[in-house]
């Protein structure tokens, strides 16, 4: 049985309790809803994109600790990054939470995102961790529709 404290690490508990960038953004240039039909988790991600740079990002909605903390850490991580950099981070994050990342060296380059390494031991929770990222990706690709994890 995987260790529970690997999943609910301090950073995750902290971001769940006090999510960063948790607000509406009236002047967002992109806004996409993300939805997990299996559990009802539901977030809206707002992005202000200028010359392919994420000038500002915020989110609102409701869901489990993993999905909310992931959205919060994501928002703090990608702010100021370019679209390409954010997409690359999602790739790495996805590799991490699906347990396909080799070695601590690579994991340590992820900064706070590394807190989600425990998710890979809980396959049922991978979708919680990636919901906000899927939604961000759709926002960056200027897709207007509602995104689901299915």
């Amino acid at each position: 049985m995987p260790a529970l404290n690997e999943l609910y690490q301090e950073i995750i508990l902290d971001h769940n309790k006090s999510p960063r960038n948790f607000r509406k953004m009236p002047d967002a240039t992109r806004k996409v809803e993300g939805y997990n039909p299996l559990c009802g988790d539901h977030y809206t991600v707002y992005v202000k994109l200028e010359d392919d740079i994420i000038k500002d990002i915020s989110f609102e909605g409701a869901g489990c600790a993993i999905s909310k903390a992931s959205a919060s850490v994501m928002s703090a991580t990608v702010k100021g990054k370019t679209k390409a950099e954010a997409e690359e981070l999602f790739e790495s994050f996805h590799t991490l939470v699906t347990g396909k990342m080799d070695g601590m060296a690579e994991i340590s380059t992820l900064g706070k995102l590394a807190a989600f390494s425990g998710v890979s031991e809980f396959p049922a929770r991978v979708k919680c961790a990636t919901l906000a990222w899927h939604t961000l990706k759709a926002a960056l690709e200027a897709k207007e529709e509602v995104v689901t994890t299915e």
Partner: protein
Amino acid sequence: MRPANEIVTSEPVVESRLHKTFDVRKIRKDFPILNQKVDGKPLVYLDNAATSQKPQVVIDAMVKYYLEENSNIHRGVHYLSEKATQSYEAARDKIQKYINASQRQEIIFVRGTTEGVNLVASSYGRSNVKQGDEIIISAMEHHSNIVPWQILCEEKGAKLLIIPMNDAGELLLDEYEKLFNSRTKFIAVNHVSNALGTVNPIKQIITIAHQYGVPVLVDGAQAVPHMRVDVLDLDCDFYVFSGHKMFGPTGVGVLYGKKKFLDAMPPYHGGGDMIKYVTFEKTIYNDLPNKFEAGTPNIAGGVGLGATIDYLNKIDMTAVRAHEHELLEYATQALSSIKGLSIIGTAKEKASVISFVLEDVHPHDIGTILDDDGIAIRTGHHCAQPVMQRFGIPATARASFAMYNTKVEVDALVEGIYRVIEVLT
């Protein structure tokens, strides 16, 4: 902390004079899967509304079928085919007696409750519901008793009306009666709500519908594991249930229908076994029940369900209800004492199902942390999203008890929830 000893050993055999013959320790021995450890902790299985566990006798019956009788039914002239047909058809007889149907032709094997509802919506619905007609369902239906009727309504231009419920999760019968008019063609209601645990006054619902000459389908998936159902007494026109929620195998269920309706209904699926004679010009359909059983069915599942009925026939279901009621009361009281916990579904008449939410904690996190203690519950919308919308919540955590659960397991659940609070807040 949770006691380290085996769960079954600390449970008293006799808990009250009401059901002194009911020995939960003995029942647990019939279900080998319960006697296992999850990461060193005794498995506490409280997800029975999703699916129940299977007693050894059911597993044995299915193994025996595959070892000694496996063959296709209703067509071979050889020994094995005769044996398989006998076992399968014997199961039909057992089910007929168990639910007190008047004739064996009224028992149609289906894959489960979902297929049973779809069969009636498609076959009865398509030939009886027309544009402008109305179908009534309730506010606490499972998606499987909503969507087939929506599909029918969309196709026919008919309207779906909903019996509302109060904040306790009880249907408002006065409002129900107001929904009737000359366009009302069908009622589909569950006997017991999977998301709230409410036991609906199904007999009253049927009586009212019959006063208006409208037939009723009852989704009994959550009722049959907890109580003995008598379709003649209820006077329901259709009753559907799944094997796997009543300690039987997955992939097999039952549609009971009054013969007068089933006779008049067109086939649902076409294929082998449902025909008498086929030419390219015309096909003569088979008689009941075969008319609705196209193709090779889940024979092993049917045989397994027959063994399940044999098993249940040896158990005093009145004692089961008393035991489960005691568990429900005990768990309701214990859970209610947890600060920040609210029970969703507080009807006066309930089966042993408790849906709850915890302040500031999402049900998924509750589920994951309880799982770490070997406790299995269900989290999510329970395929009843309109129920979640009614109560303004995205999801609940649900503990559902079966006859083999114990008070010690309720204690483990309560302790587990305290741990959830400790971890997350």
